[in-house]
């Protein structure tokens, strides 16, 4: 099992899928000749040509719609939206067309399109380049939403998303492309539904996804070492549908739950997970579940303010300590 970077895992998945099926295409801004802002398609323009690795104009709704139309008749597009902030512009085609066409055609038509995009707060990119949009996408019926937390998931989720007959939105993170991790040497398809226990524990469950899984893991180390609290970390790599059974199983075992997300609290992953906890295992819980979220502000440019706006591992530790009165 080789250790490779997140972007390399994505590049490998692109390469394998383009090689596997001549109707797979990749498209997006600067993904061709320039190799992609995050190198997810590096070298593939040279390998597969401009008809299949396509540099698009800066027309997000237009080229996303074009990809969806191509997917109606057999093409398998992988669309990169350079920053998730720009995905607002493509939301019309994603939500109104891709997600609904199977239903409103009575099952006649489907849109097997993959849309990948990095969200999250990076370093002082300002309000319009720091959005976390997973809360928007996960509420759309007919659209699968997954979000990798490591290179193995990035590789395997993209592979499965390309082959799956539903539209899939892959929520990546600006700061994770250079993260290293082990990826199987053999071909690997990651499930598009479910969750993974990233760290088993017995005292409290920390639910995270994408970047917040890492904050949870860091917090769990501190909690174990300094406070004797054995935290389980559950990685919610699938946000639509959410893994109700997995959420129930872990919370029913530890009897305590903290949901950690980089996005603002209202109408988010945390709200949804807490609702599921309420519906599935209210009487199993020994304490009210808690959310650790971003502050409800547009992300500021100032570095100190920016850091204060989003949560981190320390906030997770503090939330758990408060829950345990330690």
């Amino acid at each position, binding site marked *: 099992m080789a250790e490779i970077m997140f972007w390399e895992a994505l590049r490998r998945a692109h390469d394998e899928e383009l090689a596997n099926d*001549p*109707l797979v*295409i990749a498209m997006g801004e600067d993904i061709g000749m320039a190799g992609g802002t995050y190198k997810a398609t590096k070298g593939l323009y040279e390998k597969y040509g401009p*008809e299949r690795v396509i540099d*698009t*104009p800066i*027309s997000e*709704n*237009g*080229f*996303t*719609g*074009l*990809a*969806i*139309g*191509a*997917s*109606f*008749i*057999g*093409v398998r597009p992988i669309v990169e939206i350079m920053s998730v902030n720009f995905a607002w512009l493509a939301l*019309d*085609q994603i939500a*109104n*067309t891709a997600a609904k*066409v*199977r*239903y*409103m*055609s*009575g*099952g*006649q*038509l*489907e849109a097997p399109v993959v849309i990948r995009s990095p969200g999250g707060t990076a370093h002082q990119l300002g309000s319009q380049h720091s959005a976390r949009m997973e809360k928007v996408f996960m509420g759309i*019926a*007919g659209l*699968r939403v997954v979000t990798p937390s490591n290179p193995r998931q990035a590789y*395997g989720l993209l*592979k*499965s*998303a390309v*082959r*799956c*007959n*539903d539209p899939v939105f892959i929520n990546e993170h600006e700061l994770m492309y250079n993260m290293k991790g082990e990826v199987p040497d053999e071909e690997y*398809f*990651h*499930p*598009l*539904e479910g969750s993974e226990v990233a760290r088993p524990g017995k005292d409290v469950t920390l639910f995270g996804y994408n970047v917040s899984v890492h904050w949870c893991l860091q917090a769990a180390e501190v909690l174990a070492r300094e406070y004797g609290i054995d935290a389980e970390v559950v990685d919610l790599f699938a946000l639509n549908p959410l893994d109700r059974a997995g959420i129930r199983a872990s919370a029913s075992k530890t009897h305590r739950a903290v949901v950690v997300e980089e996005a603002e609290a209202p109408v988010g992953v945390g709200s949804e997970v807490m609702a599921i906890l309420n519906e599935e295992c209210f009487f199993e819980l020994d304490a009210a579940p808690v959310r650790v979220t971003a502050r409800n502000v547009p992300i500021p440019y100032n570095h100190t303010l920016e850091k204060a706006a989003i949560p981190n591992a320390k906030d997770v530790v503090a939330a758990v300590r408060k829950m345990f009165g330690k």
Partner: protein
Amino acid sequence: MNAADKKRLLREMLFARRFEERCYEAYVERKIGGFLHLYPGQEACVHGVMEAARPGHDYVITGYRDHIHAIKCGADPKAVMAELFAKETGSSKGRGGSMHIFDVENHFMGGYALVGGPFPLAAGMAKAIKMKGGDEIAICFLGDAANNQGTFHETLNMAALWKLPVLYVCENNLYGIGTRIDRSTAVIDQSKRVCGYDMPSAQADGQDIEKVMEAAKVAVDHVRGGNGPYFLELLTYRYRGHSMSDSNAYRAKEEEKEWGGRDPIIMLRDRLIEAGEMTKDDYKAMDTEVLDEIENEIIPFAESSPEPKLEELEKYVLAENDPYVLGGAH
């Protein structure tokens, strides 16, 4: 075009008119719900263009005024009416409704309710056709008001840049919902608006089916010949309001009278009568036959069909048993 073809087209257009008029009645009777956008007045547009194209072979997509486009592509009118009646036997199994008629088997890729939404979808279908090497073309029918959406500009740029086999047909009926084109649009002549994308275009009389066919043949030949996209503007008029909830109070009576005098069905009928190809009685008989078909076959089918099952409410949201959902259990 020979007399037999002209008569066939006359019957098709007359059928389209009567079908839509019957929809109006069914809507008033509350058999049809939701929004209902009717096509009377514009019949020569889709019939003329598709006569020059290959219905059932070329991929067609349109907006929400879509019943007749589906039927011209080969959809069974019974299934279209059953869809309007929200029945399981409907073209979209009662899940779509008036604005979302689909008949994928006949390459009618659907009616879409977001104005301008189909522009990029059509270009995408053209991209797929090009990749697969087929001789189909994609044809997108939309109204003039759709040209004020961003998708028009974004897509025409890409379609021209990548020389995609797509024909854009603009059915210019002068109104975007209730706002006249000169109150919403800086450039009235829609065929000129594509100059910015270096795309060939033409404007034709959308009321005269022979003129539509003539212009469409040039357009279709251009696109099918591998020369990239084409934009065809057809000047037409809808005889009813935008939808059933539209009182149609915004239009001048003189304007309605003028366009009413250019009814595509009457124009073709009179031409056939003048040429001695049919009599007024033949036309009456044709009309009776059409009305009988609608009343005795289509409406009873829609009326008597079952509703979708409640337990299938969530069917068609996602693919069923897709192996990759579980990580490729294969």
